[in-house]
């Protein structure tokens, strides 16, 4: 039995690969090797809808599509990570922030200076 996270990823992979909204029944057929029931597919789709990753048309309630592409989601995440507002900084611990070109040059000089001292 696959984990819920694994199923969510598998469903999203298929929705991202499709060009049109996909019926839940088709998704279940594509996941037949995992032995999941249609209700499970619906449960996972509902979860994904709650999280805002999946949407369905009101006219065709049994067809689902991804709300944004995989690249869009990556870009959204990176945009938040690279932002500088206090709130964003509080959310995660980033290894180092990016610095300006001048600052980067100063840092490299600092490192090279220490290397020379170490050799001399």
């Amino acid at each position, binding site marked *: 039995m696959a984990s819920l996270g694994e199923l969510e990823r598998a469903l999203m992979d298929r929705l991202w690969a499709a060009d049109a909204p996909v019926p839940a029944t088709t998704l279940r057929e594509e996941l037949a090797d995992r032995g999941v029931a249609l209700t499970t597919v619906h449960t996972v789709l509902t979860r994904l809808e709650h999280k805002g990753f999946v949407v369905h048309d009101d006219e065709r309630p049994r067809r689902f599509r991804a709300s944004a592409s995989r690249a869009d989601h990556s870009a959204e995440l990176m945009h938040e990570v690279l932002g500088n507002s206090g709130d964003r900084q509080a959310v995660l611990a980033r290894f180092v*922030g990016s610095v300006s070109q001048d600052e980067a040059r100063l*840092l490299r000089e*600092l490192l090279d200076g220490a290397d020379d001292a170490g050799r001399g």
Partner: protein
Amino acid sequence: MLPATAAALAVLAVLLAWPVPALLARAGWTRRDPLVALVCWQAVGLAGGLSMIGALLVHGLAPWGTSVPGAAWALLRGRPAVDPVRGDHWVALTLAGVLAVELVGVLLLSWVRTTRTRRRHRALLELVVRPAVDVPDARLLDHPAPVAFCIPGARPLLVFSSGMVAELDGEQLAAVVAHERAHLREHHHLLLLPFVAWEAALPVLPAAARAHAAVRELVEMRADDVALGSLPGPAPRRTLARAIVAAAGADGGGGVPEGALAVTGGGIRARVVRLLDPPAPLPPPARWAALAAATLLILAPTALLVVPAL
């Protein structure tokens, strides 16, 4: 006339609102022992809030009795005041209430907001990226900008961008992992939370912003120190310094958005200098003196509040 206790608390509050944070932010010894310095900052923050609210409470409750707990109880039970109640007593009580609600409220709000954003980030990551087989709590995000970070919480995640992995060699990558794991193990996000919240709550207080910046820098230095302890190789300090410089200097082929470059390099430079030319550790007597001062700082306003007003 103000009772002596209220005056003492007010003086303490003023000292902790400006001169003490300014001195601690400028002190050189904090880089020699970031952990002790972090304890001191927590004490300054806690004692500052306590004395600020305490001074107002002691003054506002004075007509109901000489001890704060007793007087508060009397007021809550609706007992008549012993001395005449003037307007300034009500003003002090109202201010104390507003300040307490704001400080605690903003802290809770920050907590809820950051937790929600972390959950969203984790959900996005779990969906977009497949976990690595050998490091189950790490995720490799396909993006040219060099970025490494951790998302704290019940199920923490380490995240690396492909740009970061391309920039570093194996030893440097291990150093970054050790650094991020140190953040997670010591719950540095909890040490930062009050300072993030109070900077938001008291934007008029320059010390709040300064304290936040100082604590952020110390947390990074502490994580560097912890990481060094677990790194193999002949020169872990140099490896970590190289990783920091490589990650900070790489622009990832223009993948970094505009605003991201606004981070000042001062803190990063201080970290690199400290790694390449380590300052002598704080001698034990100085360590204990700093810890004793921090303890005293919290005990003083607490005692002034609980002990009957002079």
